């Protein structure tokens, strides 16, 4: 089901259908996480990916009105077989690595353990992985500031009041941003 949804995602021309197929991929991956005894990751997958990120993507698709932008003839059509061939090479490499490197026992011991529960993840996150956690929080702060700066109306640069530290090119950019 995940593979079918993924193929449908790549095959769709309309990005909205593609987004809905991607939601299918996320949901089926969440089901796989549940079968892999990782319920916390499954819940986070559903909430963050299928909830937040895909709502954001669908909102941008609706906002930008993409349907009128896909009527153009395709250029670079000759490169599509090359892309598929390169992807086949990549997939062959991955399969080779998976099935010919047998350095570990691949049969699990299916007993009940607490790996994957929320408490064990939280304990690991706040003891041995505290520094990556803090770095992640700083990354989120940078993302918030960057997104606010990028999505602000008036272009990528601050308005014309503080023209001290800027060169000559931002005047053109502001003129384009106001249109």
């Amino acid at each position, binding site marked *: 089901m995940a593979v079918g949804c993924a193929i449908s995602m*790549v095959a769709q021309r309309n990005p909205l259908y593609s987004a809905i197929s991607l939601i299918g991929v996320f949901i089926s991956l969440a089901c796989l996480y549940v079968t892999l005894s990782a319920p916390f990751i499954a819940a986070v997958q559903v909430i963050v990916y299928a909830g937040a990120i895909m709502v954001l993507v669908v909102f941008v698709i609706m906002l930008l009105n993409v349907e009128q932008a896909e009527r153009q003839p395709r250029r670079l059509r000759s490169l599509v077989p090359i892309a*598929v061939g390169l992807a086949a090479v990549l997939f062959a490499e991955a399969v080779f690595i998976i099935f010919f490197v047998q350095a570990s026992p691949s049969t*699990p011991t299916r007993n009940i353990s607490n790996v994957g529960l929320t408490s064990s*993840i939280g304990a690991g996150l706040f003891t041995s992985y505290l520094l990556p956690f803090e770095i992640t929080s700083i990354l989120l702060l940078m993302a918030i500031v960057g997104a606010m700066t990028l*999505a602000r109306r008036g272009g990528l640069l601050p308005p014309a009041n503080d023209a001290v530290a800027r060169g000559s090119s931002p005047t053109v950019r502001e003129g384009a941003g106001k249109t």
Partner: protein
Amino acid sequence: MTPQLSWYLALSAVLFTIGVVGVMIKRNVISMFMCIELMLNAVNLTFVAFSSFFRDVSGQLFVFIVMTVAAAEAAVGLGIIIAIFRNRESLDVDEASVLKL
């Protein structure tokens, strides 16, 4: 029939390859963006599979951090997409091949 580790890894490889194909053949920025998300999910599946089969919680912590990075990337990437669309009136990546206007 108990699931093997190789099945999850093969599914992850298939999803990653589909994501790579999508990034290479798509011309819409948002479609390429979603294909990148698909590749991140394939890597997440690998992490969770190894973490579950080796009884180690580190893989799921990495998945958590990868999800955070993906959320940040989604916010910033969609902001960039909106800025590009505002400047160029197009979502084609060929139209945005130069950084200057």
